[in-house]
């Protein structure tokens, strides 16, 4: 007991400015990863709340002030993350932090005004990352709308590969079929990487038997995923129109994306001024001024016949109610955005279908960056997703140098249990590896695992 314990790795010194919902989610997740965290917020109550809940140090003050940053230990910090409510403040915090020490900085910038300046800002201000949760959430919603039968769609390898999560119906043709026998029944080129059944998550091997009612995730290229879903009896047509309630930033980003893909968009927004703004920004969209929670209005605007329905109001409870209502009155694919509330167990009993959490999307991006920073030089985490309530991690590594994992076939490597190498992307071509394949320098390797805390591609070895 007096010896060195291996449970706590030495983490990075991270300063988080802003203790809002994203700040807290970050503290929660980065704490679990074992980093030394200092939080800064103007409101002492918020700092205290966070310090009471997590093993972090709190500093009360203006995060953009040099002396506050010094007090929070900027000199020894490895990373500063600015997630206050204001974009400008976040950028200022990062600029000052960058001058104060040679740490990396990440800022949250979400106003569409800066959207086009992002590459410029990143380069000129020396930011490691700029995160925009609203934009990321919109992208995720759009991906689901392209494949409405899926519960979740996450993309890898520069949007070339996707992880698709679906719920198998009770009478699926895959019922009581072993994964290794699947090839005999249907023609497919995907890999099933995780299955949730009765609250347990499995990383399936060839002997795993699927059942109706399972929630499963599979990996493949976009085309192959669609083909597979068609084979097992899902409708794979993308939606043709969508009804959005609430005209916030996320709604704007989403509408922008969908319109470009040729999907008709209708937005219901309560504030006249905002409606006018939106109609200038999105000339092709139909903007309706009215209360989106008004049942009559929704009916009038054709909720019953809409193919998809996305409530994006600022109030989580409203979004949930709207989704439940839509499920009753129409067959529309509904996607619920949840910002704040944390009763995940309650939500999972509600049968909401697809749910997205912008705050988790943000923290996943940052954790991917932090892990990559911790890793030694020979590899790098490109993307990281938490799936099934953070019980499964999907990680994409870029292999930069030779190491223990390269130049041996996968069969020869002693891989950890509950781990699956899902695909390898080599020179822009994606393939699902067999035991005979090797990992080579320059590859992007995607693994799915129930272990957590992988920093380096060599972590996949037992």
């Amino acid at each position, binding site marked *: 007991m007096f010896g060195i314990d291996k449970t706590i790795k030495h983490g990075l010194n991270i300063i988080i400015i802003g203790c809002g919902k994203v700040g807290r989610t970050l503290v929660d997740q980065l704490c679990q990863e074992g980093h030394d965290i200092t939080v800064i917020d103007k409101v002492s109550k918020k700092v205290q709340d966070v310090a009471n809940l997590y*093993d972090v*140090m709190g500093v009360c003050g203006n995060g953009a002030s040099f002396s506050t940053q010094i007090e929070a230990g900027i000199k020894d910090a490895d990373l500063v993350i600015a997630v206050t409510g204001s974009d400008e403040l976040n950028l200022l915090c990062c600029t000052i932090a960058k001058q104060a020490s040679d740490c990396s900085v990440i800022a949250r910038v979400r106003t569409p005004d800066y959207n086009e300046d992002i590459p410029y800002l990143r380069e000129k201000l020396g930011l490691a990352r700029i995160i925009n949760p609203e934009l990321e959430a919109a992208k995720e919603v759009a991906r689901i709308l392209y494949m409405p039968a899926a519960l979740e769609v996450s993309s890898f390898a520069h949007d070339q590969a996707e992880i698709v999560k679906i719920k198998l119906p009770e009478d699926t043709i895959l019922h009581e079929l072993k994964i290794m026998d699947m090839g005999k029944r249907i023609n497919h080129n995907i890999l099933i990487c995780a299955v949730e059944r009765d609250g347990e998550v499995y990383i399936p091997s060839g002997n795993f038997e699927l059942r109706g009612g399972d929630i499963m995730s599979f990996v493949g290229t976009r085309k192959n995923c669609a083909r597979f879903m068609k084979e097992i009896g899902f409708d794979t047509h993308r939606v043709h129109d969508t009804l959005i309630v609430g005209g916030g930033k996320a709604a704007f980003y989403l509408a922008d994306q969908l319109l470009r893909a040729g999907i008709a968009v209708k937005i219901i927004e309560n504030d006249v001024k905002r409606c006018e703004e939106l109609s200038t920004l999105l000339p092709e969209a139909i903007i309706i001024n009215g209360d989106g929670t008004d049942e009559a209005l929704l009916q009038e605007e054709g909720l019953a016949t809409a193919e998809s329905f996305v409530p994006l109001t600022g109030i989580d409870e409203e979004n949930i109610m709207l989704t439940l209502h839509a499920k009753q009155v129409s067959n529309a694919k509904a996607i619920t955005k949840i910002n704040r509330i944390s009763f995940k167990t309650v939500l999972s009993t509600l049968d909401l279908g697809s749910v997205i959490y912008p705050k988790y999307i943000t923290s996943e991006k940052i954790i991917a960056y932090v892990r990559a920073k911790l890793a030694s030089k020979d590899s790098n985490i490109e993307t990281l997703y938490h799936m099934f309530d953070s019980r499964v991690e999907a990680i994409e590594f870029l292999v930069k140098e030779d190491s223990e994992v390269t130049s041996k076939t996968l069969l020869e490597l002693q891989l950890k249990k509950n781990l699956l190498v899902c695909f390898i992307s080599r020179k822009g071509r994606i393939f699902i590896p067999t035991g005979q394949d090797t990992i080579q320098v320059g590859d992007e390797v995607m693994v799915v695992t129930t272990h957590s805390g992988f920093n380096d591609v060599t972590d996949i070895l037992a």
Partner: protein
Amino acid sequence: MNTSMIRLILGHVIRLEGFFLLLPCVIALIYKEDQLSTYLIIAGVCLIIGSLLSHKKAKDNVFYLKEGCIATVLSWMVLSFFGALPFMMTGEIPSFTDAIFETVSGFTTTGASILTDVEALCHTSLFWRSFTHWIGGMGVLVFLLAVVPMSGASHFNLMRAESPGPSVGKLVPKLRYTARILYIIYFALTIAELVALLIAKMPWFDALCISIGTAGTGGFGILNSSVGGYSTTVQWIVTIFMILFGINFNAYYLILFGEAKKAFQIEEVRAFLLIVLAAIIFITNDIRGLYDTLFEALTDASFQVASLISSTGFATTDFDMWPGFSKTILVLLMFIGACAGSTGGGIKVSRFVIVGKAIKKELHSYIHPRSVKQITMDEKEVDPSVIRSVNTYMITFFTIFVLSILIIALEEKDLVTNFTSVIATMNNIGPGLSMVGPTQNFAHFTDLSKWVFIFNMLAGRLELFPMLIMFHPAIWHELIVKGVRKKRILKNKL
């Protein structure tokens, strides 16, 4: 109530005590004393019980302030119980009450003794007695946090319950490293004193016991004359270290990181040093007539002042014979106590600083009724809830103080004895005046009074409220009634 977590913490504490009990065994080996077997057996028992309790992991490792307080108080109780066993089993302190009194006095760094002849103890027991100070000084749970890997932020509640002072902060983001830094500073200072004493040609065993006794601001001597029998050099070294251990450890952390200037800007440290200086000057002036030279008077005055304000309780002279003015100053020093975040006891300088500022603010508001004035400390705004808790602390302190005096008074001893014996135990000092003066001891009290003192010592060390919460009916209701109900539900299910 997360009882399995409390069980786990108690298990860790008992196991830790088992390890600690192995140290006196080393002393027993060196001096070839027969008590070796007794200490070994008790250490073994502690290790076994502790391992059994801490073997099974808790289902849920989240717990809140109340569980933190309960775990802390219970830890100190079992710690005292097992710590008292060696004294009873070696027959050196046969009475159960006396043995517990002596051990609690050790762990709470009080240094009040019921022994009439300290020198009769074997070396092993002498060392263990002094070593309890060292463990209790910085706190056993803080040590636990430093060495046992326990994840989760909930453990801050343990530190909060055990660390002295109105508000507890961290030095570095991780609690675990904060605890380690504190113990590293503590350990380094102890070694520094040990080396200084050895250079001053003190016998090694004496130097060791006095060092760990000073470090915890305890005060158990190993001679009947406390520190009076040693050379003037030794006395000065001990004086300096007593003051050092009474200073907020945050100051040392700042010095360690090259910000010595900031360390001396801490208002509490300044106030503490100022009080020490003023007291020394007044007392030296007052007792000058009793000594041949000014230097002798200064030596004794400084030693006594340092000893009492840091709540150590060593003595080099019988200050009960000093004139009234000096004695009054000493009694006042006992109340003030050391800095928050040090190993010392007492009400703490920072509380007095805050109360002083609150009084100033109140006066100000009489002159300018509409004025708005924030109380600040170290250029930081003091939260109104901290001020409120300081006020409540003071009131609670004096309520317990008065009630304790009433019970002690049942013995029909003189007022000074009653009064100072409670001061000396509640502030974790050790000696008082009159019948509990530096040359006296606590042996002549009845068992009832001794248990009152035991309560006072624990309450004083744990900053009252963790101790008092144990008597809150809601806690018992939760522990017993809900536990029974849970069992009944389980039974019904079967």
